[in-house]
């Protein structure tokens, strides 16, 4: 069994386990969003693996599939985060209108800025350069957004261990990506390591999401109440 096949099978298995946990009882509305995100991630894994087998690692087709699918999954993850923000605010007296529209504007703005900067500094838009720039910027943004969301959850005292862990899983998933892509940008020789580091962080991220959804809320004694709880 080749290394790439082993990595692919491991990541697919972890994603499938995570998808299965979304059917666990006691999960709220957020499971549908997480399930679609995980299904998109599984589709991405399959598409990139088959593109790798068919066209080869250095082919333009593989780069199109890899960067296209990966960025699409990252953006879907942002929409899951936006939905988590809405759910967190739903039970509080605070109102936060237009979260999805703001999120869409932020992603589009960041993508356009990244493309313009790469075009102006490099004189062209190669798939690899633009893809790496977008991957790094989006991973960084994702990590920051997830940490901000976690801080908001703490400030408005939204309770629910699963919900908090789910937000932190996304933060860790994006944070690991931001670290890897930043290292690749600073030390180009790190690119060889990136080939293996990216799927390993995906694997860890999927297992964290699965763990967050699987482990039930801690046992509460009768009469004890949480302030306002978000089912997730």
């Amino acid at each position, binding site marked *: 069994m080749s290394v790439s096949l082993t990595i692919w099978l491991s990541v697919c298995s972890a994603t499938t386990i995570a998808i299965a946990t979304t059917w666990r009882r006691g999960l709220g509305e957020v499971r549908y969003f997480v399930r679609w995100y995980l299904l998109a991630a599984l589709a991405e894994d399959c598409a990139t693996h088959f593109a790798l087998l068919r066209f080869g690692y250095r082919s333009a087709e593989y780069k199109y599939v890899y960067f296209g699918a990966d960025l699409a999954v990252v953006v879907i993850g942002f929409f899951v985060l936006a939905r988590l923000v809405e759910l967190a605010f739903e039970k509080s007296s605070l109102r936060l209108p237009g979260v999805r529209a703001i999120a869409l504007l932020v992603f589009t703005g960041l993508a356009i*800025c*990244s493309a313009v*900067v*790469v075009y102006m*500094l*490099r004189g062209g838009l190669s798939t690899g350069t633009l893809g*790496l*720039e977008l991957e*790094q*910027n989006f991973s*960084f943004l994702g*990590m*920051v957004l*997830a*940490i901000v969301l*976690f801080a908001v959850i*703490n400030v408005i005292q939204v*309770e*629910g*261990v699963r919900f*908090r*862990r789910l937000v*932190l*899983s996304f*933060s*860790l998933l994006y*944070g*690991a990506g*931001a*670290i890897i892509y*930043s*290292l690749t*940008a*600073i030390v180009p020789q790190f690119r060889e390591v990136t080939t293996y580091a990216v799927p390993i962080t995906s694997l860890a991220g999927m297992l*964290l999401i699965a763990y967050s959804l699987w482990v039930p809320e*801690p*046992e*509460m*004694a*009768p009469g*004890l*109440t*949480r302030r306002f709880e978000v089912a997730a």
Partner: protein
Amino acid sequence: MIFDSEWASVGALIFAVFGFGYAVLAFAHVRIDNCDMKELARLRAEGILPEKVELIRDFMAIHRKLDEIAPAVYLRQEFWIQVYFQVLRFAHWMEWRARFVERELTKLSAYQANHYRTAMIRMERLQNPAL
């Protein structure tokens, strides 16, 4: 590379490492943040804890009580709580970020107090299965 700048990437890397570290710690710590803080007051009202708040002594008192009954009701005491408590106790003794340390110690005691309540309920169920 963030906006094609190596320095921006270094900044992003430093921030990402801190963010990642924070998320890892928060992931482990999330159960303490989520516990019911009122449980400590209930234990005080029931006379299980002394009326006067004393952070270190309160935690140790609940921990000792849990030690006595937890094995009988199949409740496992988490080792990391004791480690975290010792770290906070040291920080408290050194008077580092006193308010943060005091808040964390209170949360930790409340977390243990919730465990104690759960253990007591399990004990009651064992003694009176009809309930």
